[in-house]
């Protein structure tokens, strides 16, 4: 089942007429400013649009239709109420430059969101403005840089990053004009302390860590790591991608981190939307408070207002045209209020329970764990190095075969240091049965491969398309439909 392009359904002169305003008088704009060609937007009826995009939607896997155990992405249930309430006309219709007097309901919610995020992270201040995790990282590293610069400590331009880190970490360091120094991971998934000690020095701006780390285990010597970095004059950055694993149990602020970004679209369940919008709110310790990105919501007695340049003169500045992904923040606010104080802790507990259960069941079924001596956090890694060799069943093949079994694939080939790896994160909102069925599918795929090695090279078999030619996609670029 595939769907023709919307352009192929277009007929010159067709129109969804209820959607255009009445014909306007001719433009008063001089001819030399006007375009002479006609852009190829499709000319289709309203029913055609509805049918086209409804059918396209059905070609997707999604949380609402499938178990989606994607490591490092926290694909938990997105409560519907969050969306409904964020789209209430009073919120959805509010102009970003409208006066604070017509936005107290919104601003109060944002202020309370800042307070709740401070509480769960143990930080001293929160700015909601970054529009995704990577922008939160950028804000964080920029604040670290600004801190050193403000102290006249201008030589600190190195950011230390573990080799297993998310790609956004080194990419962000570069964007902030820093250089990257990679740190090896030891056999049990911890940071190599000797290497860290050797790495820090007068050039150290800071270190970027995820804890639990990207290999799915908690960095046990985090306090020692913090001391080494702080003693060397650097600051600690917490990548919040895995915050779900420790919510309400441990706080990055207590571990010694100076700055954190939170992926609200992971931990606080705002929708992933097929690739965004996210939200990368940042939290800071005392040292970085003056440098937070603008705007931030402040409170004067019973009223709320945006803090601007005059309020935070040392701010690293603005990262968005207005004030970040406000509607995403509203969804996160609603989610946090529905989960509540006790629910926060349960998120970490049940996410961890599910991950450890799934890890135990897969281990018992014969799969090889990347870090067998460790507790799983909310995710864990298995390696198919053996199966790739003996059964011609690579991590990629397993991923595609799982699609045929009605499961979205786990994250594959990340982190890069584990060969043929699957990074599996079940989240707290999946039931035991769902996990059991997933294990059954993994087992049966291996059984099939035993009977017919290499069989899954051609998987998936039941999707709208078969396996796609990525090499061709990159070599013979076809990035936009062209009218014949």
């Amino acid at each position, binding site marked *: 089942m595939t769907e023709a392009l919307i352009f192929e359904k277009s007929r010159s002169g067709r129109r969804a007429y209820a959607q255009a*305003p009445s014909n306007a008088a001719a433009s008063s704009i001089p001819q030399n400013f006007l375009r002479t060609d006609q852009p190829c937007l499709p000319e289709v009826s309203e029913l055609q649009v509805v049918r086209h995009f409804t059918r396209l939607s059905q070609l997707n896997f999604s949380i609402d239709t499938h178990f989606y155990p994607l490591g490092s992405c926290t694909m938990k249930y997105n409560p519907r109420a969050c969306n409904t309430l964020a789209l209430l006309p009073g919120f959805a219709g509010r102009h970003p430059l409208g006066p604070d007097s017509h936005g107290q309901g919104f601003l109060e919610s944002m202020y309370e969101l800042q307070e709740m995020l401070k509480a769960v992270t143990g930080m001293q201040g929160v700015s909601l403005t970054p529009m995704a995790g990577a922008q939160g990282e950028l804000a964080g590293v920029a604040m670290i840089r600004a801190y050193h610069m403000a102290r006249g400590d201008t030589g600190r331009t190195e950011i230390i990053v573990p080799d297993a880190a998310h790609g956004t970490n080194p990419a962000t360091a570069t964007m902030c004009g820093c250089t990257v120094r990679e740190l090896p991971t030891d056999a049990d998934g911890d940071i190599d302390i000797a290497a860290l000690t050797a790495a820090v020095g007068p050039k150290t701006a800071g270190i970027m860590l995820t804890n639990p780390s990207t290999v799915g285990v908690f960095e046990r010597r985090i306090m020692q790591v913090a001391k080494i970095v702080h003693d060397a004059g650097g600051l600690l950055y917490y990548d919040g991608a895995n915050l779900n694993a420790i919510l309400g149990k441990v706080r990055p602020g207590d571990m010694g981190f100076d700055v954190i970004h939170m992926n609200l679209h992971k931990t606080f369940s705002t929708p992933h939307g097929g690739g965004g919008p996210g939200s990368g709110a940042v939290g800071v310790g005392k040292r970085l408070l003056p440098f937070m990105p603008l705007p931030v919501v402040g409170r004067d007695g019973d009223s709320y207002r945006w803090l601007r340049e005059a309020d935070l003169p040392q701010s690293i500045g603005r990262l968005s045209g207005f004030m970040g992904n406000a509607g995403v923040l509203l969804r996160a606010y609603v989610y946090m209020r529905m989960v509540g104080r006790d629910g926060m802790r349960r998120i970490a507990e049940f996410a961890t329970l599910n991950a450890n259960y799934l890890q135990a069941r897969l281990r018992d079924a014969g799969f090889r764990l990347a870090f067998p001596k460790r507790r799983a956090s909310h995710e864990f890694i298995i390696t198919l190095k053996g199966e790739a060799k003996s059964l011609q069943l690579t991590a990629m093949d397993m991923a595609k075969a799982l699609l045929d079994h009605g499961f979205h694939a786990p994250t594959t080939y990340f982190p890069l240091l584990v060969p043929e790896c699957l990074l599996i994160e079940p989240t707290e909102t999946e039931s035991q049965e769902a996990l059991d069925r997933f294990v059954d599918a993994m087992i049966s795929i291996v059984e099939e491969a035993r009977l017919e090695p290499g069989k899954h090279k051609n998987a998936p078999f039941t999707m709208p398309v078969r396996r796609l030619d990525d090499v061709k996609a990159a070599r013979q670029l076809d990035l936009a439909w062209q009218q014949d």
Partner: protein
Amino acid sequence: MPFIPHTDDEVQQMLQTIGANRIADLFDEIPKELLIDDLRGVPDALSEMEITRLMRERAARDGSPLCFIGAGAYEHHIPSVVWDITTRGEFYSAYTPYQAEASQGTLQTIYEFQSMITSLTGLYASNASLYDGASALAEAALMAVRSNRRNKSRRVLLASGVNRTYRKVAEAIAGSQGLTFDELPLEQATGVSDLNALSAEGDAPVAVVIQQPTFFGTLERIDEITNWAHAQGALVIAVVNPTSLSLLKAPAQWGEQGADIACGEGQPLGVPLSSGGPYFGFMACAEKLVRQMPGRIVGRTTDLDGKPGFTLTLQAREQHIRRSKATSNICTNQGLMVTAATIYMSLLGHGGLQQVALRSEERTRALLQRLTAIDGVTLVFSGAHFHEAVLQLPQAVAPLLDKLAADGILGGYDLSVEYPELGNALLVCATETKTDADLDAYATALGRHLAND
């Protein structure tokens, strides 16, 4: 336990399989001194009923005033279809389409979006979106620096009509890599860049940014500036309003060679105002620059059977592959907004989008006619406008806006803060959503407040 399905029996079974006694045991690798007992600062849980009541009250408190503010975010009618379809679970709760075979819905939608953006801008390729218009300009500036290796400058020259907030954002994001931003002077009579200043320019900038229509709603002399920039060896970055592109010259048609990069704020294409986000930035570029583009790009290819299908492509540019050498650190972008915009553009088509543009322009003219009929209110810039314009008021702007807000009218954007040289200047906007009665209500209220003082 909201959203957690586990029963007590299941928890016991699962712990047994793991070989643990209690859930707390699963956290035994965490240093004890770090574990916390209670989360002060997070209130007790509310049921959906309770939070619904609370948020309805808050949304009602914010009301639905009559809005004449533009300044980068525009109120347009959003057809019901757009968000009905966009919020279908299969779009809403899907992840970035890394598993292409299970994500053809999202991928084809993005491919169609890219096709629409390239057609509107006239350029070769579009990416799958950036965060918003302002950050898109920052990325465009960085991209220009990467692309324009012959030119060692890191100075970016902005036309006078570039949104000042965009400049601030570009400085915050790209400043750490040594980029600097200068602004051409404003020609006071026309509200566009003073071209005489071009001859005074010294070192060639690495890129020139031209916003069309300008922040003041005026129309910039795009051909002249584009040609000048290219003559200097600078790349041209167009910052454009997508609605206006149904009417105005496409960036690829600017000057002799066309702009090299176009970017802008996608919000007018079916995205609610929503206090400033989530919106999305779009970006398109000429063929030679495509491998320097930041963000995700979808390509059409074939599957094992030779059938067409869609996949993320040119991933070697991206952070998850290239890490510290990536074109940008962007990962998550604004996918759902792109879905909404694609549906919006499909519903409107070229003709419908043009009608929105024409009607908005006409409504703004009708508003200006009414407001400038009030004693002491004048139009600041001569020449054509799109759907925004600057008025000079006989009094300070802020107190007047407060009075209008008390009437339920948001009268515009106060320029006197950012542009004190313009005096009591107010930026007003009327889109196709405004009726004659709305315009009359504004004029009547403004007239009354001015007369009363």
